[in-house]
C-alpha cells in the first residue's frame, strides 16, 4: 500500500514552494503593475479587438506593435493568437475609431486588416464587475465552508474537516492566482471575468474531490478499520486514489482537447480549469487530508518540513 501520510512533509514542501512562487509573483506584480494580477478590461474598462491580418508576407507581432504605437496607442497590449489573428487591448475607443485604426493599420502594413471581435467595457461597468467578482468569490468560499461543516456534522470535529478543506481550497486559488500573476508579468496575460468564473468552477471541483475522500474517511472510521487515525486516512486515500485519478484524467482529456484545439478566445479560461483540476486533485490527496492528520496528532512541526524532525 502506498504510504501517503508518511510522505506528507514532502507534500507540504512542494506546496510551500508553489505558494512562495505565487506570493513572489503577486508581490512583484503589485509593485510593477499596481495590482496583484494584471487586470483585463473587464475590471479596468477599455477595448479589446480581435484583428485578422491577411497579407502575402507574414506580419509579426513586433511589426504590428510598432505600427499600433506609431498610431498613438502606446498603452496597447497585443497578443498573437495564431493564423494572423491578433488580440489588442487598449483604452476605451468606439467601434468607429476601431475601424479607422484597422484601416490605418491596413495601409501601414500593406495588408488586409479586419476587426472580427470588438469589445468595449466602460469604466463604470468594470468597477462594478470587479466588486461583484470579489463578492462572488467570498460568498462561494463561505458557502463551501458552511456546507462542509454541515456535511461532516456527525464527525467528532466537523470544524476541523471544514477548515482543512477550505485551507486546501485557498491553497489552490493562491497557486493558480500566482501562476497567472507570473503569466501577467512574463507574457502580458491579463485576468478577466472568465478567470473568476474558471476559479470558482475550480473551487467547486477541488472541494468535490476533497468531499469524496473525506466521505471515505468518514466511512472507514465508522467501520473502525484501524485504531490509528493516520492509518485510516491513508487507507481511505488508497481506496479513492483510482477514482480521483480516473476522474481527473477523463476531465483533463476533454479540457486538454479544448485547450489545444478550442481556439485562442477561451484559451486562458480553459487553462484555469486545467490547472485547477491538476492542483485540486493534488491538494485533496496531499494537503486537505494530510492537514486532518496533522491536526488530529498535533504534529505541527511537519507543516514546516525544513525544521528539524522531533526525536
Amino acid at each position, binding site marked *: 500500500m502506498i504510504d501517503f501520510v508518511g510522505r506528507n512533509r514532502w507534500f507540504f514542501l512542494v506546496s510551500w514552494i508553489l505558494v512562495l512562487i505565487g506570493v513572489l509573483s503577486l508581490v512583484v506584480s503589485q509593485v510593477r503593475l499596481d495590482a496583484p494580477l494584471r487586470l483585463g478590461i473587464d475590471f479596468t474598462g477599455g477595448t479589446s479587438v480581435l484583428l485578422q491580418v491577411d497579407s502575402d508576407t507574414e506580419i509579426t507581432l513586433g511589426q504590428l506593435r510598432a505600427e499600433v504605437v506609431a498610431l498613438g496607442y502606446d498603452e496597447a497590449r497585443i497578443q498573437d493568437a495564431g493564423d494572423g489573428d491578433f488580440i489588442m487591448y487598449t483604452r476605451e475607443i468606439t*467601434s468607429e475609431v476601431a475601424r479607422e485604426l484597422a484601416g490605418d493599420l491596413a495601409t501601414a502594413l500593406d495588408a488586409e486588416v479586419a476587426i472580427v471581435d470588438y469589445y468595449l467595457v466602460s469604466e463604470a*461597468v468594470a468597477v462594478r464587475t470587479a466588486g461583484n467578482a470579489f463578492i462572488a468569490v467570498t460568498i462561494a468560499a463561505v458557502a463551501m465552508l458552511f456546507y462542509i461543516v454541515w456535511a461532516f456534522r456527525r464527525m467528532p470535529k466537523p470544524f476541523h474537516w471544514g477548515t482543512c478543506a477550505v485551507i486546501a481550497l485557498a491553497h489552490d486559488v493562491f497557486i493558480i492566482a500566482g501562476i497567472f500573476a507570473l503569466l501577467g508579468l512574463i507574457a502580458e496575460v491579463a485576468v478577466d471575468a472568465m478567470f473568476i468564473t474558471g476559479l470558482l468552477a475550480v473551487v467547486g471541483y477541488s472541494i468535490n474531490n476533497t468531499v469524496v475522500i473525506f466521505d471515505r474517511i468518514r466511512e472507514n472510521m465508522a467501520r473502525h478499520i484501524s485504531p490509528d487515525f493516520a492509518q485510516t486516512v491513508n487507507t481511505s486515500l488508497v481506496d479513492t486514489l483510482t477514482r480521483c485519478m480516473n476522474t481527473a484524467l*477523463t476531465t483533463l482529456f476533454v479540457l486538454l482537447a479544448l485547450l489545444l484545439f478550442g481556439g485562442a478566445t477561451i484559451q486562458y479560461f480553459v487553462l484555469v480549469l486545467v490547472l485547477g483540476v491538476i492542483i485540486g486533485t493534488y491538494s485533496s490527496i496531499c494537503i486537505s487530508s494530510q492537514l486532518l492528520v496533522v491536526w488530529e496528532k498535533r504534529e505541527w512541526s511537519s507543516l514546516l518540513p525544513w525544521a528539524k524532525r522531533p526525536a
Partner: protein
Amino acid sequence: MRSRNIALLIVILALFGLTLWFITPLDRSVLGRDGLRLGLDLAGGSYLIYQADVTDIDPAARDETMRGVKEIIESRVDALGIAESIVQVKRFEGEYSIAIQLPGIADIEEAKTMVGLVTVLEFREWGESEQEWIPAIGTATVNGEQKEFVLSSRYFKERTFVTLDDWTRSPLLIFEWDEIGRQLSQQITGRLLGKQLAIYLGDEPLLDEEGRPIAPTVQDVITESGQISGLGLPTAQMLSRFLNAGRIPVPLGRWVGDEPKVFEPGVPLYERTVDATLGRDSIDKSMLAAGIGIVLLVIFMLVYYRFLGLIACLSLGIYGVVLLAIFKMVPVTLTLPGVAGFILSLGMAVDANVLIFERIREELRGGRSLGAAVEAGFNRAWTAIRDSNITTFIACFVLIWLGGELGALMVRGFALTLLIGVALSMFTAIVVTRTFLRLIVGSHVVSNPAAYGVRPIGTK
C-alpha cells in the same frame, strides 16, 4: 424487480428516442437557426448597452418613457428582420439603460446605425463663416413660448412613405411636417430660396445612389410636406420604416466621470460585436475539440473499465442527447464558455460512473456475487456522488448571480450549462447506468469478472 427494470429501460429508451427526435436533424440545424440557440460569440452579432439621459423627463414618467424606447427599438429591429433579438430595460447605478442583443447579423455596423440611435435626418445649410455645413436653425412657438430648433426629421409626422417619381421612376421619400416642423420649414426654406439644403443622417451626409451627398436646392417655400429624391430604393424604404417607427424620446449614450457626470451621446456603456465568420470558426474549433475529447474519454473508459466502460459510454451518449434537448427546450443560449461548460460537464459526468464502478470492483474483489456487487456499489457510492456535486452547484449558483449582473453574459452561459450538466449527470448515473447494469447482470449475458476489469477470484 426484473419487470420494473424492463419498464425503466423502456422509459429510458423512449426518453432517448424522444429527445433524439427533438434535436434532429443533426446534420444541419443542431447549431443554427432551428437548432440550439447560439450566443453572439458563436452566431456573430452584437450586444449593446446604452444608458438613457432621462434628466429632462419627469421622474414619474421615466419608467413609461423607457418602455416606449424599448418598443421603438424593438420595432426597428423587427423592420430589419433580425430573428431572436432581445431588447431589455435595465437599471445600472440608478440610471436607466437599455440592453440590445442582435444575434447573427451579417453587417453589424449597418444594423447599429439603423437600430440606432441616430436615425434623425438633420437639415443643414452652408455656413459661410464656418466654411462647412451647419444645422439649419429656426424658431417656433410651442405652448406660447418662442424657442430655437434644428430642422430635422424629429418634426416629421410618423407617416412617411416611398413612391416612384412619375417621370424619372426614381424613388421619392415623402414626408409631412408636424406643427413645429411647419413653422421651422417656412422660415428656413424662405431664407434659403435658391440655396442648397444638405441632409445629414447623424453626423454623415445622406448619400444618393451614386454615393454623392444629397443637397437639393430650395425651389419653393415649403410648409406642409416635402420629398427627398435621389435615394436608392432599399435605403428609401429603410429610412421610411425607421422614421415611422417613432423617434427615441431620450438621448442614448453613457455617463462618464464622477461628479459632475457628463453624458456622452451615441457611445455605448458596453458593447461586444462579433463577426459571424469568427463565430463559425469558433463552432468548428469547439466541435473538433469536443470530438477529440470524447474519443479519448471513450477509449479510456473502454480500456480501463471494459464492459462497465461500455455501459458508461452508452449512458453518456444518452446523457449528451438529453442534455442537448434540455438546452434546446429551456432554451439555453449557447456561448463559447457555455460549450466549455458542456465539455467540462461531460468529463464530470463520467465521475459518478467512475465512483460507482470503483465501488462495484471493490465489492467484486471482496468476493461478492456480481448482482450483489452492483447493488452495493450503487448504494455506497450515492453519498459521495450527492455530497460532492453539491459543491459544484454552490459554485454555479454564485456564478449565475454574478452573470445576471450587467455585462457578464458569458459567465452566465458557462454556469448554466455546467449546472444543468452536473444535475443531469447524477440522473444518468443513478437511473440509466443502474438500469442497464441490473438488466445485463440479471440476464447473465456477461458474467466473467474480467469483463468488469477485475481478475477472476483466486488468480493474483
